[in-house]
C-alpha cells in the first residue's frame, strides 16, 4: 500500500515538474513550425516522458520476445539468432534472362528469391494476347506456360531456397502458383519439400493494381481462399498468401490504413476458411504479411509493433487460435517505391537505407531494399547490387542486430505504438460495420479511402508542408542524369514464338479437357487449385485459364474515380 502511495506521489511530482518545464523552459523558446505530426497525421509532442507510458502494463502489453503478445518480436532471439532474409525482388524479360539475375543475386549473398511477373502475367493474359503487346516483359518476367516456369527456376535448388512468387492477384496466382507446384512435381520433388510464399491478395486485383477487366470481388476472394485451402492440405510449408499492405501503401493509403486493411483481409480469409470446415490453427500459422517502409522512421517502427499486438488480439479473441504461430504477425518489408524520386536518383540510396532501418528496428522477417533507379526504370545489375549491399551494411556494420526490439520502452515509440494501435482498431471496426472487406471493396469505399489519402499526400508536397529533397527543395535545374538506365531485353517475339510452338506441340484434346474440368469445378463451386495444378501439365496457358474463369465469374470494373 505504501509502495502505491509512493508511486502516486512520484507520478504527481513528475506531472507537476513536466508542466513547469513545458511552460517555463520549453515555452520560452520558439519552434520552427506551428505543429509537428507523423506522415499519417498523428500529432507529435515536443517530449515524451514516463507520463506517456504510465498506462502500460509491461507483462500484459509488452511482454517478452517470442511470447504473447509478440509486440517485442515473434522470435525470442530475433536477429541475435538469425538475421532477416535478404530477399531482393527480381524479374524482367523472358524467363531465361530472369533466371540469370536470380543466380547472380544468390551468388552475391541473397538468401531468398523474390520473383516478380510482368504486367500481362499479373493480370492473367498470355504474351500474344492483342491487348498486351506493349507490356510483355515489363515490370517482371513473362510466364505463359509450365515450360516457362521450368526455365525460370532451371539450375536453382527449389527444395532448398525459399521462393516468393509475387503473383499479386488471385487470377494470376492460381495459374502461376499451380505451374510452380506442377513443375516441382515433374522434377520429382514432393510438395512437402517446398518453402516459399505467394502473394495472392484479392485486394490487389480489385482495388490496388486493377486491369482492363478483373474478376468481381467475391470471385477473386474465392480463388484466393482456394489457394490457401489447397496449400494447407498439400503444401504445408508454403505461405499461401501474403497480404500486400505494401501495395496498398504504394497506391496511397496511410500507415494505419495499411495495417487495418491487411488485417481486415485476413479476418475475411479466416472467416471463409473456417466456414469451409478448416481449423483456424491448420492454416493461420502460414498467413503472412507484406508491409511498406516509408519515410517517417518512427511511425513505421510503431506501425510494425502495433500490427503485432492488434493481430495477436484478433487471432486469439475473435478466432480462438491457440497455436502460437497463428498469433504471430510475420512480415516481409519492401522499402517504399513511391518515396523514391526521379530527380537526383542517387539520393534514393540514402532514402532506402533509412527505410530498411525502420523495418529492422520494427522486427521484420525479411526485407527488400529498393534500387536507386526505380523511379526511372527496371533496376540494373549495379543498382540491384547496391540495394543488396545496403542490407548487408545494415546487418553487419551498424550493430542494430545486437539486441532485440532496441526501441521497446522508449517513451515516444511506446506512446506512438499505442496511438497507431488505436487508429488501426478504429478502421478495422469501421470495415467490420460495413460487413467486412469484400463489401468495402464492392461499394468502392476502399478505393475512395486510398485515393483521398493519395491526393492529400500530393497536396502536402505541393504546399511544401512535406519536403521532398530534390523535388520541392534543393532542386537542381536541368539536371543531367548521373546513372545508366536499364534497357529491357526483347521478350514479345520470344514468348510469341514459344506460345505458337506450345499450341502446336501439345495434345489439344487433353488441353481442351483440362480447361473443361476447370469450368466444371467452377460450376460445383469446388476448390480450383488442384484442378489447375493438373491442367497446367497439359500445357494449357495462363491466359486460357484466366479466360475460362472470367467466362464463368464475369468481370468487374473497379470504381476508382
Amino acid at each position, binding site marked *: 500500500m505504501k509502495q502505491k502511495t509512493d508511486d502516486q506521489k512520484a507520478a504527481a511530482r513528475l506531472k507537476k515538474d513536466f508542466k513547469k518545464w513545458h511552460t517555463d523552459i520549453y515555452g520560452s523558446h520558439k519552434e520552427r513550425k506551428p505543429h509537428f505530426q507523423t506522415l499519417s497525421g498523428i500529432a507529435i509532442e515536443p517530449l515524451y516522458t514516463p507520463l506517456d507510458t504510465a498506462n502500460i502494463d509491461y507483462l500484459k502489453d509488452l511482454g517478452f520476445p517470442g511470447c504473447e503478445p509478440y509486440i517485442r518480436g515473434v522470435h525470442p532471439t530475433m536477429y541475435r539468432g538469425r538475421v532477416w532474409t535478404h530477399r531482393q525482388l527480381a524479374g524482367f524479360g523472358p524467363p531465361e534472362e530472369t533466371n540469370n539475375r536470380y543466380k547472380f543475386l544468390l551468388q552475391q549473398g541473397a538468401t531468398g528469391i523474390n520473383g516478380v511477373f510482368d*504486367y*500481362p502475367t*499479373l*493480370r492473367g*493474359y498470355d504474351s500474344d494476347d*492483342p*491487348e*498486351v*503487346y*506493349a*507490356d510483355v516483359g*515489363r*515490370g517482371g518476367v513473362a510466364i505463359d506456360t509450365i515450360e516457362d516456369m521450368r526455365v525460370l527456376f532451371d539450375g536453382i535448388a527449389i527444395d532448398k531456397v525459399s521462393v516468393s512468387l509475387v503473383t499479386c492477384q488471385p487470377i494470376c496466382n492460381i495459374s502461376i502458383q499451380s505451374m510452380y507446384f506442377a513443375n516441382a512435381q515433374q522434377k520429382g520433388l514432393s510438395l512437402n519439400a517446398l518453402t516459399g510464399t505467394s502473394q495472392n491478395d484479392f485486394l490487389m486485383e480489385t482495388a490496388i*493494381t*486493377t*486491369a*482492363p477487366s478483373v474478376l468481381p470481388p467475391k470471385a477473386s476472394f474465392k480463388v484466393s481462399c482456394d489457394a490457401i485451402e489447397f496449400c494447407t492440405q498439400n503444401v504445408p510449408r508454403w505461405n499461401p498468401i501474403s497480404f500486400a499492405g505494401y501495395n496498398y501503401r*504504394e*497506391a*496511397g493509403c496511410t500507415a494505419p490504413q495499411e495495417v487495418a486493411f491487411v488485417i481486415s483481409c485476413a479476418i475475411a480469409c479466416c472467416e471463409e476458411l473456417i466456414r469451409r470446415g478448416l481449423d483456424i490453427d491448420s492454416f493461420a500459422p502460414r498467413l503472412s504479411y507484406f508491409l511498406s517502409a516509408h519515410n517517417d522512421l518512427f511511425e513505421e517502427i510503431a506501425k510494425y509493433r502495433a500490427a503485432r499486438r492488434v493481430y495477436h488480439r484478433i487471432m486469439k479473441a475473435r478466432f480462438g487460435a491457440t497455436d502460437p504461430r497463428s498469433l504471430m504477425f510475420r512480415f516481409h518489408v519492401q522499402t517504399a517505391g*513511391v518515396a523514391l*524520386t*526521379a*530527380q537526383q536518383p542517387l539520393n534514393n540510396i540514402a532514402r532506402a537505407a533509412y527505410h530498411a532501418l525502420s523495418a529492422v528496428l520494427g522486427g521484420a522477417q525479411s526485407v527488400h531494399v529498393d534500387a536507386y533507379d526505380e*523511379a*526511372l*526504370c*527496371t533496376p540494373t545489375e549495379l543498382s540491384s547490387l547496391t540495394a543488396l549491399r545496403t542490407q548487408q551494411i545494415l546487418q553487419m556494420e551498424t550493430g542494430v542486430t545486437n539486441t532485440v526490439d532496441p526501441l521497446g520502452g522508449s517513451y515516444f515509440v511506446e506512446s506512438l505504438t499505442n496511438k497507431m494501435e488505436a487508429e488501426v482498431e478504429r478502421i478495422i471496426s469501421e470495415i467490420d460495420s460495413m460487413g467486412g472487406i469484400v463489401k468495402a471493396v464492392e461499394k468502392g469505399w476502399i478505393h475512395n479511402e486510398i*485515393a483521398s489519402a*493519395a*491526393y492529400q499526400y*500530393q*497536396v502536402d*508536397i*505541393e504546399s511544401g508542408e512535406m519536403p*521532398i529533397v*530534390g*523535388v*520541392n527543395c534543393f532542386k537542381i535545374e536541368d539536371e543531367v*542524369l548521373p546513372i545508366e*538506365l536499364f534497357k*529491357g531485353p526483347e521478350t514479345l517475339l520470344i514468348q510469341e514464338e514459344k506460345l505458337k510452338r506450345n499450341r502446336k506441340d501439345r495434345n489439344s484434346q487433353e488441353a481442351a479437357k483440362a480447361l473443361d474440368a476447370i469450368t466444371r469445378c467452377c460450376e460445383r463451386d469446388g476448390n480450383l487449385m488442384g484442378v489447375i495444378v493438373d491442367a497446367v501439365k497439359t500445357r494449357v496457358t495462363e491466359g486460357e485459364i484466366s479466360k475460362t474463369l472470367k467466362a464463368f465469374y464475369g468481370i468487374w*470494373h*473497379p470504381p*476508382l*474515380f
Partner: protein
Amino acid sequence: MSKRKRILIARLGMDAHWRGSVVVARALRDAGMEVIYIGNQMPEGIVRTAIQESVDIIGLSSLSGNHMILAPEVVQILKREGADDIKVIFGGTVPPEDIPLLKEAGISEVFGPGTSLKKIIDAINSLD
C-alpha cells in the same frame, strides 16, 4: 471566359499504377475541368471514348514502360479518325531521353515523376 475543358484520363495498356492518374484526375476536377476517367484501355478504345465524349484533351498515364509504343499510337489513331484537334498529354515514369521522342510523335506535354499538379493544370489551361 473560355468553356470548361473536357478531359479524358486513361491508363495505357496493362499499366498497374492508378495512383498518379487518379490524383491528377481529382486535381483537374477541383480546378474546374470536366474529367472522364476510364482506367486501363488500349489506344483504339481510348480514342473511341474520346470521340464519343467530345473531349478536348486526352491525358494518358503509364508507369510500366509501354509509353513509346502506345502513346504515339493514340496520336496516329486520332489522325486516322480525323479527330486530331484533340490534344494528347502524358504523365508517368519516362526516361528523360524519351521526352523529345514523345513530343516528336505528337504528344503535346510530357510530365515525369515529381511534376507538380499546378504545373499540369497550368499546362492544360495554356493548350488552345
